[in-house]
């Protein structure tokens, strides 16, 4: 089990690093999905099978698909030129130093903790469900309202006011003026 | 209750003047004239029957709760000193309304609102016996003054009004910190948390802390007074303000600083004041000489008069830190005399400017021919300013110098050089403006009846104070003795005698 944890952790870190440094948005997203899957493995090892499932279903499944959907819609997945200057090695130095300092901070924090091995208690979905719908029942209601805000907001912001021609079709339209407009 | 009424009349009068200003430009003038006149009459009636009030600590004492959660009360009280200053306030206030009658033609309502609220703030300062209330009024008079300078001022008004506000506000906050510290020290000592002046008197604290707190108070009062390193705002504010603003600034607002020294700094921190006395006197002398020197160097007439204020207020500072009855009587006299004579000079400058639209000394000259009455007035006020015997300032400065002579001979000698300097710059005004060669030919009218009334009343007061100062001295006496008692207490306690 321990070995699996370390392997999964390594995979997660590497794929996250690749995701945030990738030039191609689609590829980056795929790396991110790999990372989420390996984190899901870790959740399983830590005794949270329900969360492991949710991580795959909601995070990797729903949210990432939403991302892919938008990227496809905007057709920027293949755009490589945009960030070239930002991906020069020089750009990474300062943020990395900052992050390194934070890492040192975390390490010093961890040193101060009493060395302890986890008991690895498995908490089953049933327990989680009972807790969720008794103690945290109001929390569930509140998240419903929160999602409502998200829905109304996304509806209002996402709607197009006037017809906007898809970038891909713009060129076509220039040559064929009678080409039908396409809504996004 | 009458004390509260004095302030409320001004406040409501101000609001009324503002509102009626929408429909007519005469109504606000009349309303403010009436409001101030009522206050003046009320104060005069108190002044005339002051013997009847008996010899308790205060002539009138009014106290009610305001914000009991913080130990803040609405405590107003009147003694001889406040009474004199109130009379002065309403007298000059009345004159400011009169002199603005023609000068201010725009936004008349709001102008009079500001005048009345400044007067209310000043009256409040002279009456408050609760330190929080005192600070409240102290700040209250700033905002309308800021508007007065900023809206009706001359060319450079915005800069001057900023400078005025920031200087006074910053120093006021230092005083505020001191007030709070005093409050807590007293509260911790006695368990009574209050801002009441009477209660806070005689709060015991260690010498360094007392000194520090005194410096906080001094900051506010010395900026207002003003004393030389802190005087920077004054020439700008005085020069840019409209005439009424200058009169109120020089005649009343500066006096709140002097009043604060007498009322708060010395009674609250007697030991610290004694320790500060040498420095205070030096500052006073520097103020006298430096102010006179700068006054002499000015070509802007209003600026010149402004700097004479710095010089005259140096005498107040000198007298306050001499700690004896004669000097204190002199200080009270100086406060009143300077208010009258400098106020009068500002009024004259205002009248000149109204006629020839300049304040540049080099452009004036030989105006006597056309305006003999104005010239005569100018001569009288200039003489008053230089301290000619028989006029008010002479009595004041003479008393101060006599008093200080007992305390510190060297300082007295240096200060009397200031008198010589005063002669030079005062005569320079008369020489440059009314006598001498005509630099430009101005066509101008002499004083109108309204202006004659204003100047005439000032002349009467200057002569009256110069020839019969006894009523003022009598009225101020209990307060002066009360203030000095706190100092004598210190000398007895210390078993030494710092004051000869």
């Amino acid at each position, binding site marked *: *089990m*321990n070995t699996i*944890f370390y392997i999964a*952790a390594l995979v*997660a*870190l590497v794929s*996250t690093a690749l*995701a*945030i440094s990738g030039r191609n*948005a689609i590829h980056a*997203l795929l790396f*991110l999905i790999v990372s989420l899957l390996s*984190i899901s493995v870790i*959740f399983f*090892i*830590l*005794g*949270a099978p329900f*969360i492991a499932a949710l991580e795959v279903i*909601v*995070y990797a499944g*729903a*949210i990432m698909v939403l*991302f892919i959907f*938008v990227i496809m819609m*905007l057709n920027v997945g293949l755009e490589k030129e*945009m*960030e070239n200057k*930002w991906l020069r090695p020089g*750009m990474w130095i*300062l*943020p*990395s130093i*900052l*992050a390194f300092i*934070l*890492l040192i901070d*975390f390490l010093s924090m*961890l040193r101060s903790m009493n*060395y*302890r091995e*986890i*008991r*690895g*208690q498995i*908490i089953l979905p049933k327990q*989680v469900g009972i*807790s969720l719908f008794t*103690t*945290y029942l109001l*929390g569930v209601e509140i*998240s419903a309202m*929160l*999602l409502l*805000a998200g*829905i109304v*907001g*996304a509806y209002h*912001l*996402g709607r197009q006011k006037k017809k906007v021609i898809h970038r891909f079709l713009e060129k076509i339209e220039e040559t064929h003026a009678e080409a039908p407009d396409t809504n996004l | 209750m009458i004390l509260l009424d004095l302030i409320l009349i001004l406040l409501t009068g101000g609001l009324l003047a503002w509102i009626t200003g929408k429909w007519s430009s005469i109504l606000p003038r009349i309303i403010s004239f009436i409001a101030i006149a009522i206050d003046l009459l009320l104060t005069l009636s108190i002044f005339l029957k002051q013997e009847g009030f008996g010899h308790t600590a205060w002539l009138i004492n009014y106290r009610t709760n305001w914000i009991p959660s913080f130990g803040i009360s609405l405590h107003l009280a009147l003694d001889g000193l406040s009474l004199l200053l109130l009379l002065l306030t309403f007298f000059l206030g009345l004159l400011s309304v009169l002199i603005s009658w023609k000068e201010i033609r725009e936004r008349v309502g709001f102008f009079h609102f500001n005048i009345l609220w400044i007067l209310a703030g000043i009256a409040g300062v002279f009456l408050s016996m609760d330190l929080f209330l005192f600070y409240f009024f102290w700040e209250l008079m700033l905002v309308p003054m800021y508007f007065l300078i900023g809206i009706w001022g001359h060319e450079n008004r915005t800069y001057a009004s900023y400078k005025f506000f920031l200087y006074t506000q910053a120093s006021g906050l230092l005083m505020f910190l001191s007030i709070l510290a005093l409050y807590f020290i007293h509260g911790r000592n006695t368990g009574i948390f209050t801002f009441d002046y009477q209660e806070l008197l005689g709060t015991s604290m260690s010498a360094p802390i007392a000194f520090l707190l005194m410096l906080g108070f001094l900051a506010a009062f010395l900026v207002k007074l003003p004393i030389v390193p802190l005087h920077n705002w004054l020439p700008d504010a005085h020069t840019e303000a409209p005439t009424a603003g200058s009169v109120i600034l020089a005649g009343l607002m500066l006096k709140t600083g002097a009043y604060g020294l007498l009322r708060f700094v010395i009674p609250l921190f007697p030991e610290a004041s004694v320790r500060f006395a040498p420095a205070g006197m030096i500052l006073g002398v520097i103020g006298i000489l430096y102010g006179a020197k700068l006054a002499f160097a000015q070509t802007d007439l209003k600026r010149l008069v402004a700097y004479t204020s710095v010089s005259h207020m140096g005498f107040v500072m000198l007298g306050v830190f001499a700690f004896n009855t004669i000097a204190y009587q002199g200080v009270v006299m100086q406060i009143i005399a300077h208010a009258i004579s400098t106020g009068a000079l500002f009024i004259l400058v205002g009248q000149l400017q109204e006629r020839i639209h300049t304040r540049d000394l080099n452009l004036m000259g030989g105006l006597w021919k056309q305006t003999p009455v104005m010239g005569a007035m100018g001569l009288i006020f200039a003489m008053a300013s230089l301290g000619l015997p028989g006029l008010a300032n002479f009595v004041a400065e003479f008393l101060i110098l006599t008093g200080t002579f007992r305390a510190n001979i060297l300082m007295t000698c240096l200060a009397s050089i200031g008198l010589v300097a005063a002669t030079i710059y005062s005569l320079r005004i008369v020489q440059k403006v009314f006598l001498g060669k005509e630099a430009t030919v101005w066509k101008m009218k002499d004083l109108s009846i309204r202006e004659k009334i204003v100047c005439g009343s000032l002349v009467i007061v200057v002569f009256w104070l110069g020839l019969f100062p006894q009523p003022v001295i009598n009225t101020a006496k209990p307060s002066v003795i009360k203030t000095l008692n706190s100092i004598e207490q210190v000398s007895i306690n210390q078993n030494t005698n710092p004051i000869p």
Partner: protein
Amino acid sequence: MVTIPIEIQILFAASLFLLGLIGLLVRRNIIFMLMSIEVMFNSAGLVFIIAGSRWGQTDGQVMFIFILAVAAAEVSVGLALILQMFHHYKTLDADELSKLRDSKNDS
């Protein structure tokens, strides 16, 4: 049973968080920034799972579920905003968003 030191677990979560932060600071593409934020949220959720397993409580997992809901709502609004942004500016570069300035201090 697993015996992984809790420090290692936290270190892992912290590293993920920092990777997300680096991504946010370095990338200018708004979609990548949003992805980095997701990484950070996820790592924070991981901390709750670790803590939950340390104390043997369900609270950590419940909190994770709420984080999931919030992340979903945020992403939906965020992506909607990104759509709008793309239609206005025709770019996803965050540096193009620089019109809000004081007129005097333009540089």
